[in-house]
């Protein structure tokens, strides 16, 4: 069990799938997470890493009406976040605000700013533009892509435009390009599709099966990392959708989530249903396509792209988030409701 003891743990009461970095909180390294329990009362936890970096402190505990399938913190307001939830029979999505004086209240209630209730199908994700203040939101359900205009002060969200993904494309998630405010990628069973939000038209597609998760490189334009069931992790240049730039083995079972480090080039985290989190070093210089081939050439001489495998988890890991404030820190969340925050500092030196 390598690296087992280094992590700082935090237990949620119930099972959970999603965790998000509170990017707008520039004073602390904080994460927000929510539980997934069909029959119990669900909670949203605001967790802060203590200044010494030795323990995780619960900064806020709020009840949430339904089990949370997706959760994302607003990148420009630390008190705002979005959730996708399910009652078991139907799905919904909402934008929430953490009450200002929650520290002093006995039972603080989350304030619902807006309900994204134009959806009929199963909602998968709500996306914020990752790079800064933007009044638009994207929500994705099975069949449609919605662009919302959010007005926090008026507490209103309006559908700006909507586009159906087309027949037989059941959307499962997506990612908003941090480099292009008008570009978004959606994942479905057989491909990754790229959309231009101005026209709401498909611009491109990567035909590749079983993609669970996609993540844009924050630093490098055009680089998209995807996670798949069996075939692991692929790194794509979105301008060359025919074949990936690089391939990483991924996990023993499904690779569920994948995320690029916001600061360090080529550092990729992946979480899998084999109860591990893997840290990869995959330099993605676009010109250097020879890398993937030279791996086969001499695997013995090539440095193993796997820097570390964190395996101290008891169940599948679905939630994964880098801290944007301290980019050497990441939080992971396994299905059994355990948050583990780890520092990758020991591996940075190897770079």
């Amino acid at each position: 069990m390598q690296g087992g003891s280094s992590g700082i743990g935090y237990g949620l009461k119930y099972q959970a799938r999603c965790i998000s970095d509170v990017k707008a909180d520039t004073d602390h390294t904080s994460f927000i997470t929510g539980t997934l329990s069909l029959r119990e009362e669900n909670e949203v936890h605001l967790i802060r890493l203590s200044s010494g970096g030795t323990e995780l402190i619960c900064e806020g505990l709020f009840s949430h009406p339904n089990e949370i399938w997706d959760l994302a913190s607003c990148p420009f307001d630390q008190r705002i976040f979005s959730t996708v939830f399910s009652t078991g029979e139907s799905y919904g999505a909402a934008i929430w605000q953490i009450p200002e004086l929650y520290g002093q209240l006995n039972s603080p209630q989350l304030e619902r700013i807006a309900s994204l209730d134009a959806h009929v199908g199963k909602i998968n994700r709500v996306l914020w533009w990752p790079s800064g203040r933007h009044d638009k939101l994207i929500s994705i359900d099975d069949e449609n892509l919605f662009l919302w205009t959010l007005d926090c002060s008026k507490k209103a969200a309006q559908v700006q435009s909507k586009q159906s993904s087309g027949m037989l494309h059941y959307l499962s998630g997506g990612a908003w390009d941090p480099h292009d405010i008008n570009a978004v990628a959606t994942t479905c069973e057989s491909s990754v599709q790229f959309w231009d939000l101005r026209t709401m038209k498909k611009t491109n597609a990567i035909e590749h099966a079983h993609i669970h998760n996609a993540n844009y490189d924050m630093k490098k334009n055009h680089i998209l990392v995807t996670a798949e069931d069996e075939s692991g992790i692929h790194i794509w240049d979105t301008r060359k959708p025919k074949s990936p730039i690089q391939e990483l083995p991924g996990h023993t079972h499904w690779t569920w989530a994948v995320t690029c480090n916001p600061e360090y080039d080529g550092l990729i985290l992946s979480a899998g249903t084999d109860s591990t989190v893997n840290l990869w070093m995959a330099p993605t210089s676009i010109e250097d396509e020879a890398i993937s081939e030279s791996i086969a050439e001499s695997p013995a001489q090539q440095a193993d792209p796997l820097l570390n495998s964190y395996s101290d988890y008891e169940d599948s890991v679905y939630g994964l988030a880098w801290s944007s404030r301290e980019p050497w820190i990441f939080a992971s969340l396994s299905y059994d409701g355990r948050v583990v925050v780890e520092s990758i500092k020991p591996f940075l030196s190897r770079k």
Partner: protein
Amino acid sequence: MGAEDNVPLDDKAKRMRDLLSSFYAPDPSTNNAPSNPGTLDAINTSSFDADQYMNLLIQKSNLDELLQRHVEMAAEIKNIDTDLQMLVYENYSKFISATDAIKRMKSDIVGMEANMEQLLDKIMSVQSKIQFIYDLPTRLGKCIESEAYVDAVKFYTGALPIFKAYGDSSFQDCKQASEEAISIIGKLFSDSESIQARTEAAVLLKQLDFPVDSLQVKLLEKLEQSLGDLQLKTDDIENASMESNDPKLGKVPDSVHITAHEGSIRGFAEAISAYRVIFPDSEGHLIKLAQDLVVKHFETVEQCVKGRFSCANLLVVLRTIWTDVLLMDEVLSEAVLPGFSLEAAQNALKQHVASTFNYLLHDISDALLRLNVSSKEAAEENPLQVALEASKKALLQGSMDVLLDFRQLLDDDLGLLVQLRDFVSDWVQEGFQDFFRALYDRFFLLSGRKSSSSQDQGLTAGAHGEKVLAGLVLVLSQLSVFIEQTAIPRITEEIAASFPGGGARVYENGPAFVPGVMCRIFRSAGERLLHHYINMRTQKVSTLLRKRFTTPNWVKHKEPREVHMFVDLFLQELKETTSEVKQILPQGLERKHRRSDSNGSTASSRSNQLRDDKTNRSNTHKARSQLLETHLAKLFKQKVEIFTKVERTQESVVTTAVKLCLKSLQEFVRLQTFNRSGFQQIQLDIQFLRTPLKETVEDEAAVDFLLDEVIVAASERCLDPIPLEPPILDRLIQAKLAKWKEKNPITP
């Protein structure tokens, strides 16, 4: 004096002439027709009878007439007389002058004798010379016929001054004929006579004062042409060796060709040496020519080694070339042909090594790809086993053949090869290194793991045109192990025994063939391919499960009536996997779970939770403490490892596949929300799976645990988790079993 001219002449002149002519004429009677003596005209004839004439005249004429006749006759007589006088005078003067001449002659003739003799001599000598000139063409012809060109030229050059002096006049014909004959010598250039003959001819032509420059150029052209001829012969060797290669005997090609070739090379060499003698300043050209020949030789060799070309054949060709080179070197050492050809031979051998290994690679791929064909026909019972054995044989036997083949190169004492021995050793080792690298790439190409970015044509089409068979991947995996454990050690051994040292070059990265690295590569390839195989197999199940779980509306599921058919499909897939695995994987020795190799884990604690749930069905508010309990329990309970290291045994592979499938099943369940019936359906399906799965797998505990986990996951995702009553569960399972046995008489 024509009679016609007489017409204007008067009678007198005529008569004069007649007289003269009668005087000189030997027989006047023939001139004059015998006239009738009875007429008056007969006076001018020889048979003239004066009395008769008189009688006749008197008889016929009267007096006047007689008188007139008399006058006439008198005048005539006078005239004749004068004429006669004239005649005599003229003849006399002629006689006088003739006498004078005789007198003069008499005095001149003295001293003539000596001159005459001199003249005779001179005439005699001229006559013999003229005879020689006249005979020259024939003689030259004869010389040429008997190929005594030297003599011919000698003769010709001897006669040349005469031809120069009198060629245009007296001896024109002879000169032409001789030149024609001599030009035959010139023609020898264009004939297919031997090079040597031509060289001789060149020497002679030089003697004949042919322009040297054009001669040189011409001869060079000839030599160049002869290069072409020599070249052709190498092609013959190729053909011959290709033919002899057909019956796979590696027979030495037709030696006739070789000797013929050697002969012509010898001629070529002689021509070169002669040429050098004639044109001392022509080395540059000759060197170029000789080198061209060597280059062409090696071009042929390189052409040859592109095909399947055994070392024995290569040896024959190289030997020929080397002989050529040595022959030419004798006469033209300035061309440094041995060094030159050494370099060329290096390239050729290198290419040969490369192409040999390339073919070996092809053979192995062919053996493997036959699997695709045979599985379509489904003719063989154990296609995987057959393919594995075939490819193993192709690999090992092929490698050994290659080594044996190259061994011949080392054993040969050909001067060329002796110098290259170390290189050959290196190349063979390098060749194996590259070969295994290429094989490794090929494996992944065939397995479909690698995108066709590595531009390997030919096979790419075959491998990507259709879906890659999972079985092929398993075969590849086994083959990798074979390579690592058997083939590479054997080859290493063989190389150590037969190809010592090498080291002609300094390697930055150590020796050329590093069996350790290769073993490592193939060990990892074997593992990767085995994993790939398992992935491919589980992926099919995964697709099945995905459909199963995403299609129905689980929240509105109806009460379970029977075990769902996806179970059949799942078991069917498993059966296929088992049958494939049984063909080529060894049986595991122990049916024991090995914990130490695990790289992932999950606690089985929550299955206890389920069992608790079974008893306390409606006790939902206990859940919180239960979760705490599970956390606590995990600390104490021994973990059941799911993702253990795959071993290369039938059981381990199947077990791993089953585990992965069940884990996927669990994950799919976790993504859904079930009503009570939906949950019960899952419970039923899983319960049914329990028995056949346990029969198939090695790690019963892990499978049991995973099956429990699926039910736990379903209950967690259930709005109203009330399991089926055991009797109903049992009844449904029995019903399914009965149906199943009906369909599959033999239980898997």
